[in-house]
């Protein structure tokens, strides 16, 4: 009996190893088909008291609850003479306390529970997030809504935050990468809310009344969407939210119109002096909105051009072939309601700044001129199709994504149709996207680096930099005053 069993096992093993032969190359591998359907936002959508919309998913895998409240509010609705108000509001929503609690008492309590409560005011969305153990949900929910609903912006913490913010201004021009991203946007968007910077004067002028006014205007239930996942019963959570929101009056929020007139900076080189052993470079122009019908073609095109890591052309050429840089590529940044930016980027030692730029320019030119290869197309499209499920790995991130879809006015079937839209991208559409949205004749080249060695160049590309276009030297404003440094 025993012997027979062994024989059967032995045969089974032979079959098993035949069925699962050892491959030596990826092309020899065969994969079982995999079916994945993304969750449907409508299955999680609900409306709470006061018209507060919510996406809620029970997830009992860990004794944790995560809740994020999105508010349609950000610095893009701000005023020039009150620059910095939004970041102060983000800091003071919690630290400034509420009608009944001091800020430090809220922080101490949430910390004692091993939880976290944080607020962040971004460009056009504000997020206030709570994470607590499931046993502390009721208390956590109370703190979250107290902060959202009754912030007091007390004088002492506000005074301290203003002083710290002003001190932080000293660091505004320390890091070359931060200078580059700030000044690149300033050049492309011009003088408008997106690019206004706080100064000592604007911070000093801000008062608790300013913060209260902004809060009163934007923080109403109908201007928020809640996303929650965790170890709770949906009915209980909803009841808790309804209790917290009860009596919170709504009013119609009027949003300032977004500034959609942009300067057309003259093509050429914009150079910012910074003592560094590399040049930090962005070259490009304004991009598109993600509601653009060509969005998917642009994504695939940029993946091939410089967005797909080592599978992309700019990385292969500049890093892998030439060893010029550690970071390089191209990116389209998207923003809600406004065109984003497009940039090729690289950081390379001063002597190879001109050479690296010329290589990126060649790639811009090539993707406009020649069709991409079948292999490049296959890699890019497969990447989006096969990695699709990745975005749904955590229930909380999924709920937050759904809330964001709704807030930014995207169709709720966005994820359901995503893969079909990627599949519809063809080589011809990639080329069309490149010709339409990569425009070398409108391009600015911004460099933050050390002028002398960057301008001199090296063996493979000798300077001066004006071979790349007319050179404009930009002097950074003093971050304290916002005025030209003396």
């Amino acid at each position, binding site marked *: 009996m025993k012997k027979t069993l062994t024989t059967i*096992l*032995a045969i089974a*093993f032979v079959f098993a*190893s035949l069925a699962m032969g050892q*491959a*030596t*190359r*990826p092309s020899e*591998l065969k*994969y079982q088909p*995999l079916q994945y359907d993304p969750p449907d936002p409508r299955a999680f959508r609900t409306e709470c008291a006061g018209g507060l919309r919510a996406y809620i998913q029970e997830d009992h*895998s860990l004794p*944790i609850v995560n809740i994020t409240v999105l508010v349609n509010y950000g610095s893009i609705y701000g005023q020039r003479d009150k620059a910095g108000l939004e*970041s102060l509001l983000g*800091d003071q929503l919690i630290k400034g306390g509420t009608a009944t609690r001091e800020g430090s008492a809220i*922080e101490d309590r*949430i*910390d*004692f*529970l*091993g*939880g976290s409560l*944080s*607020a*962040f005011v971004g460009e056009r969305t504000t997020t206030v997030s709570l994470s607590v*153990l499931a046993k502390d949900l009721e208390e956590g929910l109370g703190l979250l809504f107290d902060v959202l609903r009754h912030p007091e912006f007390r004088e002492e913490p506000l005074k*301290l935050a203003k*002083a*710290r913010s002003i*001190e*932080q201004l*000293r660091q505004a021009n*320390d*890091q070359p990468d931060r200078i580059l991203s700030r000044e690149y946007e300033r050049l492309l968007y011009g003088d408008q809310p997106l690019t206004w910077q*706080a100064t000592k004067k604007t911070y000093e002028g801000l008062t608790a009344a300013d913060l209260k006014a902004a809060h009163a205007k934007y923080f109403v239930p109908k201007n928020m969407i809640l996303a929650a996942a965790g170890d709770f019963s949906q009915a209980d959570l909803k009841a808790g939210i309804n209790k917290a929101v009860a009596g919170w009056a709504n009013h119609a929020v009027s949003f300032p119109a977004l500034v959609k007139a942009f300067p057309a900076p003259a093509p050429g080189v914009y150079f910012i002096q910074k*003592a560094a*052993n*590399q040049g930090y470079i962005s070259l490009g122009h304004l991009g598109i909105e993600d509601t653009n019908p060509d969005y998917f073609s642009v994504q695939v095109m940029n993946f091939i051009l410089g967005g*797909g*890591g*080592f*599978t992309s052309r700019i990385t292969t050429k500049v*890093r892998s*072939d*030439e*060893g*010029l840089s550690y*970071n390089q590529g191209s990116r389209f940044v998207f923003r809600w309601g406004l065109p984003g930016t497009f940039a090729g980027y690289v*950081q390379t*030692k001063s002597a190879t700044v001109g050479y690296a730029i010329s290589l990126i320019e060649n790639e811009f030119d090539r993707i406009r001129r020649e069709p991409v290869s079948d292999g490049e197309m*296959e890699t890019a499209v497969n*990447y989006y199709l096969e*990695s699709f*499920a*990745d975005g*749904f*790995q*955590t229930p*909380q991130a999924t709920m937050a994504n759904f809330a964001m879809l709704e807030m930014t006015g995207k169709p709720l079937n966005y994820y359901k149709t995503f893969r079909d839209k990627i599949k519809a991208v063809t080589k011809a559409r990639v080329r069309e996207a490149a010709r339409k949205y990569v425009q070398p004749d409108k391009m600015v080249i911004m460099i933050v680096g*050390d002028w002398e060695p960057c301008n001199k160049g090296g063996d493979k590309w000798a300077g001066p930099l004006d071979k790349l276009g007319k050179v404009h030297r930009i002097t950074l404003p003093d971050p304290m005053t916002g005025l030209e440094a003396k």
Partner: protein
Amino acid sequence: MKRSLLALAALLAFATLAVSGELSLDVKEHVLGNGMKILMVPKPGIPRVVCHVYFKVGSINERPGITGSAHVHEHLMFKGTRVMGVTDFDKDSEIDRRIDALMDRIYREKYWKTDGDAAKIADWQNEAEALAKAEKAYIIKDDLWNQYVKNGGTGLNASTGNENTGYYVTLPSNRVELQMLLESDRMMNAYFREFYSEKNVIMEERRLSENRPGSLFDEQVNAAFYAASPYHWDVIGWMDDLKKMTKQDLVEFHNRYYVPNNAVAVYVGDFDPAAIIAMAEKYFGRIPKGPDLEPIRDGEPPQYSEKRMYGEGPAPTSLAMMFHTPPEGNADAPALSVLASVIGSGGGGFGPRGGPGGGTGRLYKLLVRDKQLAINASASSRPQWYVGSFQFSATPRQDKGVQPEDLEKEIWAEVDRIKKDGLTDEEIQKAKNRGEAMFIRSLGSTMGLASRLGRAELNRGWRSVLTDIDDLKKVTNDDVKRVAAKYFVKDNSLTAVYRRKMGR
């Protein structure tokens, strides 16, 4: 033979439900015949699998002259093997050998002599470049990366630390075999193609970090703090070593450390453990076991005197106070962790971009909020595998004319209070609650979990992630007072004072 191996393997595979208090973690464990460990945490649902491989090797396994080589090696692991990334290995390797021979001559002329012949070097350099160009005909660029990407690989990366090196990818659950194939291939068949141009990439990586204001001073502080142990140099390595490192250095490094008995593979996601074990036997199981590896030899000798460093440059004026502490697993480590949590939490992270600026730490309340002497003030405990450190950091309020030395006095006064009275019961309980809750939260991230288990396995075993929480819960105020008195003494410290001096 094969069969009995498999049967044995099946017996060794068992599910372990390790429990810490009320916490439990269901990790399935399997050991291959060659000593390689496989850890599995099945999480049915989303059809993705986080696949990580960790090696017990990092910059502490280097020595002067080859600093940075653990990291250079990690980069080269992406540049193809004898199988991957090449169309005709024989032709490719023939060119490669000629390039190596030329580079050897160049290095000798350039680095072994003080008066090397520049003209000769230039000629050889041109010849090597021509060969590198010819070699390109046989190279499939970034083959491994492409294979992963077109199969839906995300989180594709690798990282090198002081103590370990990890290789990461997350794949659709039907494609895990690809990871087993590619990762076992680069362990067995490493080839270090395009070594010389990749070194240039890494030197650019080093320059990038040099351009972070204050980083060069930090590197010097670190080197002064760790006098004897190999934590003395940064993972990126010294620029001279990067320049002079040879391919042979890497071959030796690889053969010694990239052996299955020095590695652990971790899988977290939607899979059947039996299938993972069968594939691991097939792919990783084919690699021969290597020799046993000795732990590093040097710890830190007692200082017997205080160290002080002063620097100036383009970064904000700041203060750092560092103290030598024992490594992970030491009986004093949990109390030090409680101290860092209570004194230091939420003291950093403030800025125009916001961030979780919870200011609940003692130093924040004392120096930032109440006395208003600092913009930030924080503390952290970093036990590490062989030697530990505890650090206080603070940035003074320049608008009030506060100097780093003023903050130093304030921190010492607070430390003295703690030595005498310890912490309050509520503070200690807060640190315990935070530690436990943060741990539970970390289990929600599949990648975070893989990384935590893999790294822990290489040092004290994966169960240490649970026992550390148990140990944290046992900390008393007497423990806190004892460790504060033992480690926060001048003779055990390095104080670094940095002042901003604007350059061009």
